[in-house]
């Protein structure tokens, strides 16, 4: 491992921990939805993305793809809270639902992201919604990190995918 990748992998958890913490505070403080439990963080060989999954990429000195997948009932609840009393035309309901999922993902990741390496900017891509459930296999050069947030309305699954050398072998997310 060269010096540059040593530096990168040491800091990867410093990127992910704030995202996990922000996801919890966003749900609880902004959406009034209690998070009962956050699962242990695992590094699976493949991941199954839910049908309501939003993907955001980072660029700069940290390169990751981060996804948040929402259970249907939880997303419906998030839409209700997000929209509140605002009138939505029936024709726009599906697009609003999709854009709420994207906006929540964008806010959680955007609020949490910071560059622990050199404080240079990390840019995030516009969120992209994956409409259909999908299974992705890990290849030899990549690594998945997976964690689940559990609420009474269902789960949110967070996945981070990146080059293997960016991740520590033993992830200690305490």
């Amino acid at each position: 491992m060269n010096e540059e990748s040593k530096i990168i992998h040491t800091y990867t958890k410093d990127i992910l921990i704030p995202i996990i913490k922000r996801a919890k505070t966003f749900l609880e403080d902004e959406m009034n939805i209690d998070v009962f439990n956050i699962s242990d963080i695992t590094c699976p060989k493949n991941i199954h993305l839910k049908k309501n999954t939003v993907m955001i990429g980072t660029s700069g000195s940290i390169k990751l793809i981060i996804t948040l997948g929402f259970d249907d009932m939880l997303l419906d609840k998030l839409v209700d809270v997000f929209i509140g009393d605002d009138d939505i035309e029936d024709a726009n309901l599906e697009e609003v639902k999709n854009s709420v999922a994207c906006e929540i993902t964008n806010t959680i990741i955007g609020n949490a992201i910071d560059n622990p390496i050199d404080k240079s900017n990390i840019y995030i891509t516009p969120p992209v919604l994956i409409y259909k459930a999908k299974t992705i296999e890990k290849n030899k050069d990549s690594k998945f990190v997976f964690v689940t947030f559990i609420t009474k309305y269902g789960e949110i699954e967070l996945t981070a995918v990146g080059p293997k050398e960016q991740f520590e072998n033993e992830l200690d997310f305490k």
Partner: protein
Amino acid sequence: MLNILIVDDSLAIRIKMKNYLKRLGHSIVGEAKDGREAVQMYKELTPDLITMDISMPIMNGVDSLSQIMKISQLNANVIMITANGQDGIVKDALKLGAKGFILKPVSEEKLQDSIGRIFSEYSSADCDQLDENDLDDVF
């Protein structure tokens, strides 16, 4: 009452922004879904104020801000809206001429405060023009 152009690729955010701004007594003259549309609509509508998302497809908010500032000879009033509050990104936008920024999630109070910093007649409290030094208090 200000004539405002809302720029955001998210329909949900455009709906929220429109309702917040209407409740604050302003008029929405247009909505753009990306930075390129925003430049075109700015030329056509010359709004008093633009709320500009940063992360958008086709053309992002910073590039759009840059073009609008050239067209307006730095006279356009633009508030940047972003989830990504890293110092460098916000400072870059302020250097290009943005008059303010709001860190998502957006609220009516944040909008009122930010508008009041640019247009003193809409200020809800004593607040000065935002500049880069204010970032030290924000982050």
